[in-house]
């Protein structure tokens, strides 16, 4: 059952010549043939191209390629439909980009290829990464491999479902307000949002440029560190990427004890509407962290209650500007009109789905004359306060721990008619992006009936990924949750 291996287990077998990259890829394609009819994780995939890449990897392994130089050599990894891969479609789950073929590789795609990965498949998502359930995809929702009457989370729901169901060994997604951590939690896998500026966004279709960050979906923490190591680092093509060396994340994985580590518990995160099983799983995770030697400290993030409102001003404002490029002129859908304005408006009216329209219109409004200061600039100021809350808390603690989501996966259709309720399902993940810090979700339990995964979120200061890995790895290795697999895996 090759497809059930982690990335690290697969590369060990490849190096011992116990299997080939082609066999690993075929195992994924076989698993996709079994479960895609029930899950719809993928929007499309190019088997011929993937097989060519796997054959190239096998030839490299046969001729003695060095694993240290190409850490992901031969590993099949899939992409959220938001990254450009040369010669492949990139549609962002939207009708407006139907038929678009990328002319170049995103930097992260180029880095995965340089590390030897077999990059294949376009994973489903909420249109333009706007949503928390993948129900906003123009091509129909993805379903949760633990219970196909439920959503996998979003916006990177296809990534989470595919990795959880062993359709690929890892996937890359994007996280603007929780779009990696929330679906990872709801599908029982690891999802990492690196610090703003650590991973290049060149070739990532922009949603909210001051918040977007690229990160991996993996089956465990070791794999998360391995994939991050390959994609992180300065890129001249992204002016927001930080020109600093990338640490060796493997050194964070050696320590099993958390002695001397101080973990913050934000008192403001005890909100109403928490599922009792999530609260119980979180409390037993805290006990486990304490038994590993960590010290728990209460911290305060006083502006927490304003995070969602701040986010739903800043993110739509930036989206309304970024998505102005979809105008029917250079790529994608076009609906003709008698003037450029009519053509633009008709194209966008026909090409965007309801959530994207809501956010573009909301963003346009908060940036419009007379409202800019009252909404947008005020939100930017509250954002300063939210960031200060975190930086002050991190003077007392090494990391902060919270549940990733207030509830396990909800049912298809449960929140899709109530956008505000959908927005509030991201309540624990949003602040991390506003503050520009890093965060990871690691599995921390299953509900009783049905069995649905829950996630523990760990947050660390800017460029504190090594701290995240150390805490999450020690926790993960001392609990059984990361080995639990969905019925469709």
């Amino acid at each position, binding site marked *: 059952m090759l497809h059930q291996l982690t990335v690290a287990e697969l590369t060990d077998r490849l190096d011992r010549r116990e299997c080939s990259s082609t066999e690993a890829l075929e195992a994924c394609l076989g698993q996709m043939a079994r479960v895609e009819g029930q899950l719809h994780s993928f929007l499309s995939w190019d088997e011929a191209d993937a097989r060519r890449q796997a054959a190239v990897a096998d030839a490299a392994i046969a001729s003695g390629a060095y694993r240290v130089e190409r850490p992901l050599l031969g590993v099949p990894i899939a992409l959220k439909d938001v990254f450009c891969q040369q010669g492949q479609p990139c549609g962002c789950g939207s009708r407006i980009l139907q038929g678009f073929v990328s002319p170049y590789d995103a930097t992260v795609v180029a880095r995965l290829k340089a590390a030897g990965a077999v990059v294949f498949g376009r994973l489903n998502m909420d249109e333009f990464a706007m949503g928390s359930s993948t129900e906003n995809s123009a091509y129909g929702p993805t379903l949760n491999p633990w219970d196909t009457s439920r959503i996998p989370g979003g916006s990177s729901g296809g990534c989470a479902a595919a990795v959880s169901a062993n359709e690929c060994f890892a996937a890359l997604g994007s996280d603007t307000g929780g779009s990696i951590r929330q679906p990872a939690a709801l599908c029982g896998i690891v999802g990492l949002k690196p610090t703003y500026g650590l991973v290049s966004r060149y070739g990532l279709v922009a949603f909210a440029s001051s918040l977007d960050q690229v990160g991996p979906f993996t089956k465990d923490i070791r794999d998360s560190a391995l994939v991050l190591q390959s994609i992180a680092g300065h890129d*001249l093509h992204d002016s927001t990427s930080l020109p600093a060396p990338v640490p060796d994340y493997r050194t964070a994985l050696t320590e099993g004890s958390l002695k001397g580590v101080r973990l913050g518990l934000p008192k403001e995160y005890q909100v109403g509407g928490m599922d009792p099983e999530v609260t119980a799983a979180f409390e037993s995770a805290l006990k486990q962290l304490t038994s590993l030697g960590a010290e728990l400290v209460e911290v305060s993030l006083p502006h927490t209650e304003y995070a969602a409102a701040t986010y739903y001003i800043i993110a739509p404002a930036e989206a309304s500007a970024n998505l102005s490029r979809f105008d029917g002129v250079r790529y994608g859908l076009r609906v003709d009109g008698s003037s*450029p304005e009519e053509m633009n408006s008709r194209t966008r009216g026909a090409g965007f789905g*309801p959530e994207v329209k*809501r956010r573009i*219109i*909301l963003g346009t*409004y908060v940036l419009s004359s007379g409202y800019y200061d009252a909404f947008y600039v005020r939100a930017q100021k509250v954002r300063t306060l939210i960031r200060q809350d975190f930086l002050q808390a991190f003077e007392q603690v090494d990391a902060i721990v919270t549940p990733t989501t207030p509830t396990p996966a909800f049912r298809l259709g449960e929140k899709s008619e109530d956008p505000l309720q959908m927005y509030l399902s991201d309540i624990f993940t949003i602040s991390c992006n506003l503050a*520009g810090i890093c965060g990871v979700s690691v599995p921390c339990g299953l509900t009783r009936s049905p069995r649905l995964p829950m996630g523990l979120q760990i947050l660390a200061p800017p460029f504190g990924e090594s701290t995240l890995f150390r805490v999450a790895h020690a926790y993960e290795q001392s609990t059984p949750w990361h080995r639990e697999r969905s019925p469709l895996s």
Partner: protein
Amino acid sequence: MSDFDIRYVSRLARVSLTPVEEEKLGNQLGLILGYIAQLKEVDVNGVEPLAHAIPLVNVTRPDVPTGSLDHEEALRNAPARSNGLFVVPKIVE
């Protein structure tokens, strides 16, 4: 939000809406605007706005000429093209 005019803002955003969409989106946005209006409670006196969490200034790359997207490649995804150009509806009579 009594002064939120869905027709006016959707026109600014260049998104045409059907009357059914105007009604539905207008109502939903009314609720969302009510929610985000809670930021008025926060005391932001003397607080600087934050545009980027990790501010970098004067970011430039070395001034070395490099290749760019090939002309044909740049036009390949165009919905309408002619004579090596993107085509748009007539702007001036």
